[in-house]
């Protein structure tokens, strides 16, 4: 049986956060196009569409703020990687014949979720964050 190590706890927190973020974005009226899209270069958490913009959402979940705001974990290098992954996703959709409808903008959002031991999770949506 799989052991429950620290990595698995971290992954479980991440998955929980992504679920929460996706349902929140859906309620806000964003059309979710894909989730957890993977390629050899990395992963995009949520890809959505809203008001003619394609939105690439990075979700950061923490159970403590001892290491700072979750959004701080998005360094310039990470941002650059996500930009590139977004372009790759676009190129692959195109190669697959998926025109993606009308869009005139690429937007990169961050959703941070802090779930402390007591109280409900705190969710923040930063639009066009990077």
């Amino acid at each position, binding site marked *: 049986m799989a052991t429950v190590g620290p990595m698995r706890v971290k992954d479980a927190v991440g998955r929980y956060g992504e679920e929460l973020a996706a349902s929140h974005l859906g309620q806000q009226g964003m059309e979710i196009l894909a989730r957890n899209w993977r390629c050899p270069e990395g992963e995009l958490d949520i890809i959505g569409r809203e008001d003619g913009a394609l939105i690439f959402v990075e979700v950061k979940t923490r159970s403590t703020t001892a290491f700072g705001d979750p959004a701080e974990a998005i360094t310039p290098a990470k941002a650059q990687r996500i930009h590139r992954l977004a*372009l790759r996703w676009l190129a692959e959709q195109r190669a697959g014949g998926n025109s993606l409808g009308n869009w005139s903008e690429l937007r990169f959002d961050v959703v941070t979720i802090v779930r402390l031991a007591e109280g409900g999770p705190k969710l923040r949506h930063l639009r066009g964050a990077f």
Partner: protein
Amino acid sequence: MSLARTLGVALTGVQGDVIEIEADVADSSLPGLQFTGLADATVVESRDRIRAALTNSGITWPNKRITLALFPADVRKVGSRFDLGMAMALLGAAKQIPADALNGVVWIAELGLDGRLRAVRGVLPSIVAARRAGYRRMVVAAGNAAEAALVPDVDVRAAENLRELLDWFLGLGPAPAPAQRAAEPSLDAPVPDLADVAGQSAAKRALEISAAGHHHLYLVGVPGAGKTMLAERLPGLLPDLDDDAALEVTAVHSVAGRLDAETGLIRRPPLQAPHHTASMAALVGGGSGLARPGAISLAHHGCLFLDEAPEFSASSLDALRQPLEKGQVVLHRSGGVVRYPANFQLLLAANPCPCGARPDDCICTPPVRRRYLQRISGPLLDRIDLRVQVDPVLHAELFETAGERVASGTVAERVASARAAARERWADSGWQLNSQAPGSQLRRGRWALPRTVIRPAEDYLRRGELSVRGLDRVLRVAWTIADLGGRTVPELADVAEALYFRSGASSWAA
């Protein structure tokens, strides 16, 4: 005293100059043969060849003082290509054949000791030069007949030996047959097909864009991913060379001695794939005295594929920069300055690290990996529009049937129509391919795209992830992508895709 004059062609690179050869036979001196007029040691060597060839053709050697002069004296004359011209001048001066029969004939052949005419390198550019200088009658060795016949509107005779020519001039035999063109090699000769390559949709797409817009391409990926297979399939996607281009390419190959007797005009874009141990001279051209063409010139109007690019020496790679900009290479040697055309499409392939293992098994530390890919210098990398990371082939892709994969022929048709669209658009501007369009025109000029369309590229520029030169290259590629898609103007998604291919292996390497 008795004088005769013939014509030959001296070659400097692919540049030919018609030269005059004068022979003088003097009665009242000691017998001997001497040369004047900047004749190279190889020319002086023909003394012995001419003498043996004449004697073995049944001609009595004029036992007098013979002077052979080559004009103009300041054009350097190298090689054995003047043998025949000198022998004919000598025969004219010795009154063995009528001297005025020699007027206006250009002679290009080497003599064997038995009197046979032997083929020489560079016959095609020589005949082109002679025609340009206004001459129409030429004689070459039978071995060069097919090559010489590629030039239209000239009367080229191909002879087997000296005796045949002598009989012709003395009216004892027929004129040698006009040189005949070899049958052009069938254009549907087997070329590797894109359908052989499993998976790699992104790399195939990049290959198609590269072919359509003449954009240089850089492939990075683990061994076995199919980089070499992909690169070898690029020429198959390119259109046939037009008449002018085919003559240029064939001329370079002729000068390099790479044409065999039966080769017709080179109609398909050539592929040159020098090994990474190739010397700089082999790559860009060189050799002592007067430089010979290298791989980049043999790849003129074709593709230069450098596999394992980081293994090439840094100086060799950087020597590519000038030809990439100018479309030609200028080589300075003691014997003079030579220009060779070198308008090639560059294809680089590299492993992501020196150990070449799959990502999970790689033993290279990050600094080692970084240093390895940094061997491709920034200025060279900056000239490459498309950079693709070639992922390992998935099991499922390997076993898909070839029928599901797009074939070279289909892609070549798309490439041809994209090129036609670009040619039509740029017709007034004087360039033909998107890669030739100046950046300023694409950014500010008549062809500037709306801000909304280039926004992702501007964001990259603003964040410092793209240089201004990089932006120009993204715009060029975006035009090519639009041409392939049949759109008259690039849209946002075209710019995004161009940006994806531009940002390829570089960020991955960092």
